[in-house]
């Protein structure tokens, strides 16, 4: 590990650097799953679930990560918390006092201290809680592993339960005694136990009913303000993402295709895929259904084991030209701090979702 602080590290050296307002940066992150075929388990190719992803997460923001199923958003989240080991690339994380480490290179023992800093909230409130442990044990387990004293753990668990809107008396109950929404609160309490700096929320409100979903979103926002948390909010529901995020990244077949602050991305998308996604969302307003002018997407998501040549989106893109079929666009910077991976981002006049009161 380098002792150099990011401020003094020079460009061109191998020491990783991050801007002072950055908490995490993914550099060329790849997660490939090998496919084996035949009797001899011959290596027949790779599913490129995450393929050359560059993304930076700023301190204190909510970064939404959206895309269709199979686009690699969950895999990205899971490699940040290092449930998965990336195939290649860097996961640069800036510690509280400015030291930068590459989480992708660390082994389990070295990762131990960072496991407390980066935590995860899972999608399914039923399968993500051990049915044989009490709520107190579920939330306190990580504290015990991190070496807390028994009495402190007890106080902390009660404090956390109160914070997520559950009664501290419930500490001895088992998960089956709670509803889906309450279980998700337990999952959130568990993720906050170690005072994390980054929480990866993977579809954390998708499985909940409408009325419970609103409560849970409010809770996540309140906790973020109170504890100064940073969220990577992985979700497929664009209205939820627009509501909770400061910035949004859109993924398609393992690659980031567009990153921008929420208002620009939803108001004036620069990538045709973003436009198509936005206009696929059903609007809870019968008057607006007659206004749909953007054509619906045809075809299926490309196979990440066998992606098309050129731009991965070109077979479905209504604006595709010859260049798109041969040359793969790189993620490049546009004015206003946005990034897009499209050859024709400047020329295209794409339709966003107008702001409503």
């Amino acid at each position: 590990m380098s002792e150099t602080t990011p401020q003094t590290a020079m460009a061109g050296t191998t020491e990783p650097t991050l801007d002072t307002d950055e908490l995490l940066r993914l550099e060329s992150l790849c997660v490939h799953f090998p496919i084996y075929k035949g009797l001899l388990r011959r290596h027949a190719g790779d599913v490129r679930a995450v393929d050359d992803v560059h993304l930076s997460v700023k301190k204190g923001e909510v970064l939404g990560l959206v895309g269709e199923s199979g686009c690699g958003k969950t895999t990205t989240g899971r490699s940040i918390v290092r449930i998965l080991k990336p195939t290649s690339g860097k996961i640069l994380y800036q510690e509280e006092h400015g030291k930068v480490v590459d989480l992708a290179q660390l082994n389990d023992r070295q990762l131990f201290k960072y496991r407390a800093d980066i935590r995860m909230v899972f999608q399914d409130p039923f399968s993500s809680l051990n049915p044989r442990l009490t709520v107190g044990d579920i939330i306190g387990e990580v504290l015990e592993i991190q070496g807390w004293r028994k009495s402190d753990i007890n106080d902390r668990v009660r404090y956390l339960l109160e914070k997520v809107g559950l009664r501290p008396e419930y500490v001895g109950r088992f998960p089956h005694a709670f509803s889906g929404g309450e279980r998700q609160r337990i999952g959130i309490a568990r993720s906050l136990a170690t005072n994390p700096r980054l929480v990866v929320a993977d579809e954390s409100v998708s499985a909940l009913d409408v009325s419970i979903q609103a409560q849970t979103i409010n809770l996540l926002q309140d906790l973020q303000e109170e504890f100064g948390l940073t969220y990577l909010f992985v979700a497929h529901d664009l209205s939820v993402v627009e509501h909770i995020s400061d910035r949004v990244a859109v993924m398609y077949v393992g690659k980031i295709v567009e990153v921008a602050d929420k208002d620009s991305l939803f108001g004036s998308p620069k990538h045709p895929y973003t436009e198509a996604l936005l206009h696929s969302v059903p609007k809870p307003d019968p008057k607006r259904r007659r206004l749909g002018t953007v054509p619906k997407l045809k075809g299926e998501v490309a196979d990440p084991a066998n992606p098309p040549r050129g731009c991965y989106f070109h077979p479905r893109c209504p604006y595709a030209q010859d260049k798109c079929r041969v040359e793969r666009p790189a993620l490049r910077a546009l004015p206003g701090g946005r990034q897009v991976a499209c050859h024709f981002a400047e020329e295209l006049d794409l339709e966003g979702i107008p702001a409503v009161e």
Partner: protein
Amino acid sequence: MLLRKKIQYGRPGSAILDADAAGMRPENLVEVRNLQTHFFTDRGIVKAVDGVSFAVPKGKTIGIVGESGSGKSITARSLMSLIDPPGRIVSGEILLERQDGQIVDIARLDPFGSEIRAIRGADIALIFQEPMAALSPVHTIGNQIIEMIQIHEDLDDKAARDKAIDMLRRVDMPKAEQRIDAYTFELSGGMRQRAMIAMALACRPRLVIADEPTTALDVTTQATILDLLRELQSRDEMSVMFITHDLGVVAEIADEVAVMYLGRVVERGPVDDIFEQPMHPYTRALIRSIPKLGVRGRHRLEAISGMVPHPSNRPQGCPFHDRCPEFMPGVCDRIVPPLEKIGERRDVSCLLHSDVEALKAASEQETTSDE
């Protein structure tokens, strides 16, 4: 067989009704009146559907909206008489106008009888949420569609196969002639859903019940499936009963909406009215609680407090009263609100819109006469 003789299946009385006696409005294909479907479990009676009334107009789409536990799926299955024991349709009427103009009360039919089997698939078809659970993994989709066609129509193998290919083309299945011999695992989620829709529509049913057909799909696939359903509906003039928890989907596809809560319809009306002038506090709260695309800036959602109670633990009086922002003590927790007609094709079940004094008097009279 012995067991089957002991149990009275279906309810007594003739299932085939005279059109005048039934009193069905000619613009409706189905009228559900005060339907009650209960489950008799070891822990007590679960009133999953407890007095549901609505109508499915001909050639239109009715959206049934509700959270989990609201009884919307059980209502749909009741229409097909597909309630598994220990559940049973306890009372109420499900009137269906058949192709030949005959009116049948499905609630009175034997759920194992030949009459209901002739209705299932031919008059009413069901599209499920999860195609993998509804389609067989060991038969090709073609064989499943052909089987369905041959049950209801007298066609030879060649003609049935041609018809199946035609159905797959109609649901925009790419390469229908080849895909007819595909197994479900060879198809993507959207294509499986298309195959199931093709199967459901094979016999040109007059009513299609779609139970959360797009919930498991991506937004882009959902949009194409919704377009397809809308297109097929307008071409064939069939009625669709679309069950969903997603208000956005309802606004997109429905002509009329029925909002359900704890086994009851709390509000019903044309889609524009429901979204613009919701009358029931639950509908209002539901619409306010969802994040809407296009609302920028940081704000809090107006969440509904509490959660849906378990159907076996239903609150007294109005089922929504303990979460209602307009709760009237001494009224809402005592009187069960009736479904009141407040306009053309518009009903609401809330004591804010009822004559409370009259209901009070009626309920007091009832209790005294009981004694």
